[in-house]
């Protein structure tokens, strides 16, 4: 399938989903759906580096939080324009602030991508394990900085006050849901494009054998940097609308471990070698958690995610997609 056709199909599905939710008319559905969509973006983003290149990133929460705090930062700037800029700039600044959310999303993507580049440059030369450990450390360093940075709320957190009604979409949550749908389309298309391009072949050689990749002419460091930047940028973009969604941001919610765990567990459970895996994993686990949060407690559903992750890495290393492929292959052979 050509990429334009793929995008068209995704858009149709997304629009149908939006209309269906709108017809049910329950805000709760949009709230729950938003979370699942956010996980699709995170899982797909993680998989570009983790699944395609085989470099485990434990810092998803950090990249997500970069997106979250980019929005908080510009919101805070908008609130205090007259305090922080020279007087002649106040009027023009007031014209462009508050920045529209799509602009914030793109900015957040750029910031997170840039941070990914810096981090990758420092650590991607090393063995994959060191990269993984560095990403764990990176999240905590970042959280410490945010906790100590009072401009964006510090440890107390920050309130984001936005109108509850948005033109065209009605409720704010419907607008956020639609934005997240667009991000899902962007993430899935990017992931699929990479998978089928020369870049995807290069990523797979890195995952399989980095020495052999270099010997075959693959510029491994550059490719890993590309993967880190794309992956980080998508995670940052997923985080940007979060303050609008939740209304009150504190470091604990932006850096929540469940982002790191889910963005690893979802591709692992769905399957890491294609764009379908993270989508399947996120839909399944994301929906399961939404149901479980209502029916049981949120701690129990995190436990379920953890156990499923362990179960799948041991029993079904190629995830659900792998299981289906094996069955399909087995049937076509016999």
């Amino acid at each position, binding site marked *: 399938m050509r990429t334009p056709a793929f995008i068209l199909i995704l858009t149709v599905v997304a629009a149908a989903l939006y209309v269906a939710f709108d017809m049910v008319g329950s805000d709760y559905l949009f709230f729950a759906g938003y979370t699942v969509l956010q996980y699709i973006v995170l899982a797909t983003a993680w998989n570009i580096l983790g699944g395609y290149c085989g470099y485990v990133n434990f810092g998803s929460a950090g990249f997500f939080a970069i997106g979250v705090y980019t929005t908080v930062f510009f919101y805070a700037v908008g609130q205090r324009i007259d305090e922080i800029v020279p007087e002649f700039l106040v009027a023009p600044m007031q014209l462009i602030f508050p920045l529209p959310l799509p602009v914030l999303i793109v900015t957040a993507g750029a910031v997170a991508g840039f941070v990914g580049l810096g981090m990758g440059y420092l650590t991607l030369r090393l063995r994959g394990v060191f990269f993984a450990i560095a990403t764990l450390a990176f999240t905590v360093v970042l959280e410490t900085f945010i906790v100590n940075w009072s401009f964006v709320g510090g440890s107390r957190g920050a309130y984001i006050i936005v109108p509850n009604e948005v033109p065209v979409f009605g409720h704010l949550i419907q607008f956020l849901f639609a934005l997240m749908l667009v991000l899902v389309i962007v993430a899935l298309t990017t992931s699929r494009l990479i998978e089928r391009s020369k870049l995807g072949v290069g990523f797979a050689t890195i995952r399989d054998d980095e020495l052999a990749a270099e010997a075959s*002419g693959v*510029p491994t460091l550059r490719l890993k940097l590309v993967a880190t930047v794309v992956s980080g940028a998508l995670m940052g973009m997923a985080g940007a609308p979060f303050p609008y969604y939740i209304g009150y941001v504190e470091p604990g919610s932006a850096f929540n471990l469940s982002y790191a765990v889910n963005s690893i567990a979802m591709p692992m459970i769905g399957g890491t070698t294609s764009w379908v895996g993270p989508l399947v994993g996120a839909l399944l686990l994301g929906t399961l958690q939404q149901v479980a949060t209502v029916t049981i407690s949120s701690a129990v559903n995190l436990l379920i995610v953890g156990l499923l992750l362990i179960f799948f890495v041991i029993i079904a290393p190629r995830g659900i997609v792998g299981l289906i492929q094996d069955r399909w292959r087995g049937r076509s052979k016999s």
Partner: protein
Amino acid sequence: MSDTMTAPLLHIDQLGKRFGGFVALDGVDLSVPKGQRLGLIGPNGSGKSTLVNCICGTLQNETGSVTFDGQRIDGMVAHQRTRHGLARSFQLPRPFRSMTVAQNIRVPLLYTVNARAGSHLSHSELDDRCMELLKLVTLDAKAGKYTTDLTQVEMRKLELARAMAAEPKLLIADESMAGLSHSEVEDIVALLIRMNERGVTIIMIEHIMRAVMTFSQRVVVLVSGKKIADGNPDDVMKNTEVVGAYLGT
């Protein structure tokens, strides 16, 4: 005749490398003219693999220089050297396991051949080139198989075909025959000679003396990181120092 016409394809000057206190390469000099079939031998731990790794960029040399095709290449990372026309096979085959045999061959075509200026293979040309290379190593029937389905000797052939796919001027075959049967060894030697006939200079690192003697036009012996003999195969084999190093006397 200008110097460039007679200049060797590969010229190594006083190459040195240490690991901690262990001297792996101790000032090695080596010049390889274009088109030659060179056998590099030496006991285990003599520095053969380190030499290959320093030439190919898997390791960086500490002293001395490596000049390839008129250009200093030490300091370049491995993939740049491959693009300059220096390919290698690994001692233990390192196939890309998530790919089929044909896809393995495609990698150097995409990333080395197509990365060179003035060359761009279309999809169908890539496919043709893959099949041509697989025919050369008689793996064409296995093109669609995953590498986990290959036998040991097939794996070695894939390793060589993948190195050849980069269209190298110099191919370094690192112990391509260890553990193979008599007829399989002959198979690989014949394959390497065929590649040489296509104009590729080849350095073969090998323990199997029969293969070295059939293949090589020249033999170089490395012991404890030093070159102790260099010349035509029969003379080298008569060299008392070489005999001593191999028999341990």
